[in-house]
């Protein structure tokens, strides 16, 4: 079986390998869940039905929120990482600040963020903002690491050939951090999926809130289904979510991981 080895990490390359690792794995988990529900009658599907179409559309809403938050996180993280590594004085000041900000539990801030966004009747903004904060530091720190491992010879060679400022950024720094951007993005979006379960169920953070204030998405359907013992809806939501995560991994991240290997220094 043909494999590509880079930096002691083996990435699935062939279609067969990618099917095994990314599609079959999650499907086995889903099948096991169905099996557990089948074997234990107390968990048998019950409650009000939500159609597969509704859950799928909800999942796409969730995906859209994640994508907007991710795009914002990248747009902010790249300049931040470049700024913090620009010189040692800036790094000495900013990096500890970033460390503290990263350590602040995002969910502790969520009620405040919701109260802020509810003023503008923009609750989607609250969810996107909390997802953005979750993703941001993952990407920033992996990019900072990426910039720091650009070999000195490469920087020296670029300077000898007249590259500086924006040209250095465009021709050397930005391409050099592509592998870290990809791995950081995978981690960030994974954390986003973790948080989405909470980020869409807004009513628990609003004093006197009702489920009508929740955002339409697979996260809120999942939580409400669990709370109301709608096992069938719960199972279907988890399945749709896993399928979407698997598809994104298969069609986007694995391809980007493979492509990004070209940008790695030996």
């Amino acid at each position: 079986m043909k494999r590509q080895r880079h930096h002691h990490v083996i990435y699935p390359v062939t279609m067969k390998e990618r099917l095994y690792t990314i599609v079959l794995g999650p499907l086995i988990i889903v099948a096991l869940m169905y099996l557990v529900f089948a074997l234990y009658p107390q968990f048998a599907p019950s409650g009000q039905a939500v159609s597969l179409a509704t859950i799928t559309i909800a999942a796409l809403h969730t995906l859209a929120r994640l994508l907007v938050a991710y795009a914002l996180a990248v747009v902010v993280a790249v300049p931040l990482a470049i700024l913090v590594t620009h010189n040692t004085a800036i790094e000495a000041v900013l990096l500890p600040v970033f460390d503290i900000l990263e350590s602040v539990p995002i969910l502790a801030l969520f009620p405040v963020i919701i109260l802020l966004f509810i003023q503008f009747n923009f609750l989607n903004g609250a969810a996107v903002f909390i997802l953005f904060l979750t993703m941001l530091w993952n990407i920033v720190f992996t990019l900072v690491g990426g910039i720091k491992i650009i070999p000195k010879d490469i920087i020296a060679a670029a300077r000898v050939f007249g590259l500086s400022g924006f040209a250095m950024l465009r021709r050397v720094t930005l391409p050099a951090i592509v592998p870290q951007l990809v791995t950081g993005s995978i981690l960030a979006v994974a954390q986003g999926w973790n948080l989405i379960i909470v980020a869409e169920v807004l009513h628990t953070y609003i004093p006197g809130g009702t489920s009508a204030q929740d955002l339409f998405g697979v996260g809120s359907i999942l939580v409400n289904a669990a709370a109301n013992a709608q096992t069938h809806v719960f199972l279907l939501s988890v399945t749709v979510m896993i399928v979407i995560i698997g598809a994104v991994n298969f069609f986007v991240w694995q391809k980007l991981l493979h492509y990004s290997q070209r940008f790695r220094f030996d």
Partner: protein
Amino acid sequence: MNIIEFKNVGKRYLGERTPAVHDISFSVAEGEFVCLIGPSGCGKTTVLKLIAGLEEKTTGTITRPDGVSMAFQSGALLPWLTVFDNAALGLRQRKERAEKISQAVDRELRSVGMLTLHDKYPADLSGGQRQRVGIARALAVDPPVLLLDEPFSALDAKTTAELHDDLTKIWRETKKTVLMVSHLIEEAVSLGGRVILMRDGTIDQTFQIDLPYPRRESEHFHREVMKIRREFFR
């Protein structure tokens, strides 16, 4: 006519108590091939960086032309660019016309035997091939001075010998001024018209090598090597 001139040059890095180099005075004539040798940490790479403009001197005066070019020990190729695009880096930065870039890069890749691999990526190349591309990149900008920082130190003996021959041929054909840092006395004597021995951050001795090329097999070559070796290990 001298193209490079150092007068009492010193360089102290920020936070260091002792200077990396001090009281360096020497000159290089146009078309000369000079090798800098010396033990590790003696300051030879710092001298090269000062000529390349990668470091600023702390004391003294340096005369050097603009557009100095350099090849590095690691090759220092950008892994996401093809051989051609790597070799074209300097010319693209100078915003030369595409036709001129193509001609110059093809010429230099041919001179180092890499033209047929122009569309390969550095990951597809051997260490020797990467070095060849690094040299082609340095030559493509038609520099007045070519600096080489231990370009062959990571290569096997056979590849090194081949590259020595290629470099000698290129130097004789182009009449470029070449300054090379090496930690091998044999290499310096094999290539250089002059060998400068550095020690403790300054120039210790200079040796004129008046031998015809190719030098490696001649008796005089071994005699010169032995002479410098005695001083090196003094």
